[in-house]
């Protein structure tokens, strides 16, 4: 294999790495100033407001096109999630009831659990 100092690929990779470090460090210095904070927050505040307005406008447009918006899709996903959650609660309740009626022990889902007897392996013992 060629010496690293002669390898153009290694030189290129090293250069990219150094450029990344240099740019990040320069940007970090610039971003530590109060002026940057002031400018960023002025721009950010305006952008957040504009983003919200745009989102609302898009939502209205999608409703007029009879299409579901992102928030409606997210809403549906969340309803499904909540139904799943309720099913899990029911499963857990059923398991508790079956435990109470003398069925062998397991976790909330009836999966039999191994005994809680493990101890750390002693020195040299495989883990």
């Amino acid at each position: 294999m060629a010496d690293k100092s002669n390898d153009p690929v290694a030189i290129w990779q090293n250069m990219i790495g150094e450029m990344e470090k240099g740019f990040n460090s320069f940007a970090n210095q610039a971003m530590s100033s109060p002026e940057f904070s002031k400018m960023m927050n002025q721009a950010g505040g305006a952008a957040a407001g504009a983003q919200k307005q745009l989102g609302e406008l898009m939502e209205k447009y999608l409703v007029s096109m009879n299409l579901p918006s992102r928030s409606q899709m997210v809403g549906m996903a969340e309803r499904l999630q909540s139904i799943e959650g309720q099913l899990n609660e029911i499963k857990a309740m059923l398991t508790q009831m079956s435990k109470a009626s003398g069925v062998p022990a397991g976790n909330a889902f009836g999966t039999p659990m191994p005994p809680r007897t493990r101890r750390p392996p002693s020195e040299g013992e495989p883990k």
Partner: protein
Amino acid sequence: MNAPTGLDFAAVSERVQTEVQRAIQRSIKGVEYFSTSGPTLGSTAKDVLASRGTMNLYHYRPLTDEIYRVPILIVMATTNRGYILDMVPGQSFIEFLLKRGYDVYMLDWSAPKPEEKSLRMEDYVLDFIPDSVRRVQEDSGIDDVTVIGYCFGGVLSLLYGSIFHDGPMKNLICFTTPIDFREMKLFSNFSDRRYFDVDRLVDSVGNMPPELILQSFEMLRPASRSVSQIQLWENIWNDEFVKSYRMFDRWATDTLPLAGEYFRTITKDLMWDNKLFNDAMTVGGRPAQLDKIKVPILHAVAEHDHIVPYDAAKHLIQKIGSTDKEEVILKGGHVSLVAGPNAVRRLWPKLDSWLGGRSI
């Protein structure tokens, strides 16, 4: 004619050949990259023990015939998804713990809905965590619980542990957990109280949009995204590199929104007033002082963490009231400390050797 000193023509020819092969592979794999999805993440078998709004509590199915007595509850950071700790088989922290005989639960978060914008710090520290601990106790039949918190999950675990210092937390493990927020210098500057009107922002947007959170993370290293894309192109012939890139890129961009009121408290109490560090933090009127925590604690920090610099995390061990306490500084960054090949070699075995004896 003689070759110039140090130049080995055979090696150069081999290098050129390799690069030509890689260039061809890049074209083929480049097309593949855009036509396929990444690896399936978070696939370790689990049951959903509870799901309530933004809160999800999972129980992972044991993989050994015998498990330690004390179960583990992992508290994930509220900004990101928990699958960073369960990437793919062989690179999953959860799978590692299960194979080493631990009983593992995880408190993970989904995106808070717009109507959950009023969730406060109290909801996380005095409701979601204690409720999850109670459910872990009920499900495992064991009173003691080890809590592991990653990043801001560590902050929430510290707040929980300092308020509920009489139990049932048996051990506490924090990964890259900040307590001195002045030392998160860039975040501190971004949220400078003279210019950052958190009230106006929260009142106008409700929940903090994930794009803003992602942007603020990326601003810490503005050149890194472009460089990582160059590196992807260079290494696109390498399946392992691409798989790893896709896993971490997907996770990093899968940022969660933050509930508005919760974000307001983080900004005012932690970023502005540094109350946790100054022993002045309260949650729902209850004082949260770190010296009240007396359980064994391990704090793992990363040498090159650009999100939580060491200076922001270094006082934790000193401020904790426990006598059994340890800090480990490991090579790596904020994410590579807990996931990926670096974590497999360094953090995971360290954690196992620390926790095993304290889990019986």
